[in-house]
């Protein structure tokens, strides 16, 4: 909780929605959200370290429970990619999809941590503003979506060649007729702009909204004992429902990544 000042709903919300920033240069742009960065790197290191640790000792014989779990996850991703992407998926697309799914899932899952208890926990380390969920930071979702967007362009050029890609931008989807060229270009432009926007904002919106709801439910605790109990019930309900959202959004983000990358590989 914000110490010292009087606690109002606004200050409560603001406290939980303020990043710990660090300036790395002149201007508003050159700031880093230290909490977002640290949490995402920590989660990534934990999850991919775990995967690496399991995979290093992987046996092709009878797998242990730990390996079976990892295999289950990886084969699930592999199946999804196989049904969408028709190329050598093992070279890049499938492992990239695994990275996206596991990382986004882990970052989303942080949303289920009890916000006020975590705030108290961070306070112990003197971290007054510390947000646990990296995907409620639009920088994270945009970073992921724009990376996928760049990969999309990279694979477009790699598979079709620069000229092939430009040809596609100019001549599809309506036709080769020069009169249709401006329409085609406009259409593709809209598509190329909307893809990263919808990709990133969908994830950001869902998880951010989830966090806001948790905060609103948390405010029931300010109304006394009955309110606290009621808030607890609501919190449990929302948390259980949120498990679905967390997983679903991670899955959707991964599937869109795979779909965008496979579209980049296929000619119209």
């Amino acid at each position, binding site marked *: 909780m914000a110490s010292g000042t009087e606690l109002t709903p606004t200050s409560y919300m603001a406290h939980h929605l303020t990043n710990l920033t660090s300036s790395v240069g002149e201007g*508003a742009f050159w700031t*880093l959200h230290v909490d977002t960065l640290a949490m995402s790197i920590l989660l990534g290191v934990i999850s991919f370290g775990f995967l690496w640790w399991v995979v290093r000792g992987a046996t092709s014989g009878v797998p242990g429970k730990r390996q079976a779990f990892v295999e289950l996850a990886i084969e699930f991703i592999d199946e999804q990619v196989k049904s969408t992407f028709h190329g050598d998926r093992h070279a890049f697309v499938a492992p*990239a999809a695994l990275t996206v799914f596991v990382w986004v899932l882990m970052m989303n899952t942080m949303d289920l941590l009890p916000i006020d208890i975590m705030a108290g926990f961070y306070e112990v380390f003197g971290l007054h503003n510390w947000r646990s969920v990296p995907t409620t930071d639009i920088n994270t979702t945009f970073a992921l979506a724009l990376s996928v967007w760049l990969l999309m362009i990279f694979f477009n050029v790699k598979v079709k060649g620069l000229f092939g890609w430009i040809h596609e931008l100019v001549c599809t989807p309506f036709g080769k007729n020069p009169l249709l060229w401006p329409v085609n270009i406009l259409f593709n432009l809209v598509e190329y702009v909307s893809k990263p926007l919808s990709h990133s904002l969908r994830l950001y919106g869902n998880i951010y909204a989830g966090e806001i709801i948790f905060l609103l439910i948390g405010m029931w605790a300010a109304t006394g004992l009955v309110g606290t109990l009621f808030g607890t019930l609501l919190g449990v309900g929302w948390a259980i429902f949120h498990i679905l959202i967390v997983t679903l959004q991670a899955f959707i983000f991964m599937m869109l990544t795979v779909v965008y990358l496979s579209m980049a590989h296929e000619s119209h």
Partner: protein
Amino acid sequence: MNINFTLFAQAMTFAIFIWFTVKFVWPPLMRAIENRQKTIADGLAAGERGKRELELASHRSADVVKDAKQQAADVIAQAEKRASQIIEEAKVAAQDEGNRILTGAKAEVEQEVFRARETLRQHVADLAVAGAAKILHREVDAKTHADLLASIKAEL
């Protein structure tokens, strides 16, 4: 909702994690899974092959049993033929042996009859001599009348 340098930092982090997964996480596990799939496929193929071989073996064993039965029947038939042949031969040999024994016995009987007749003849001669001696009331010298006695003996 302010976009700042965090975006680039996160993108960099993302790139590193993708690189890590592509390089270190995905290939070893896929290798392990593919190896296992191959092992299972091989096992299934081996099972299928085993089943086929069993079928062939059972066909072969049925053939062998049939052959053996045929051979046994042949052996029995041959043995029966040979047995009847041996019996025939034995019959012929027994017949011959019987005939020989019969011939020997006949010869022996004849000899015995002859000998008995000789003895009988001797006795009759003796009796005749004794009778004559009694009739003549005198001793007939056997030596003197040997020729006479011999002629009588011959007539008997």
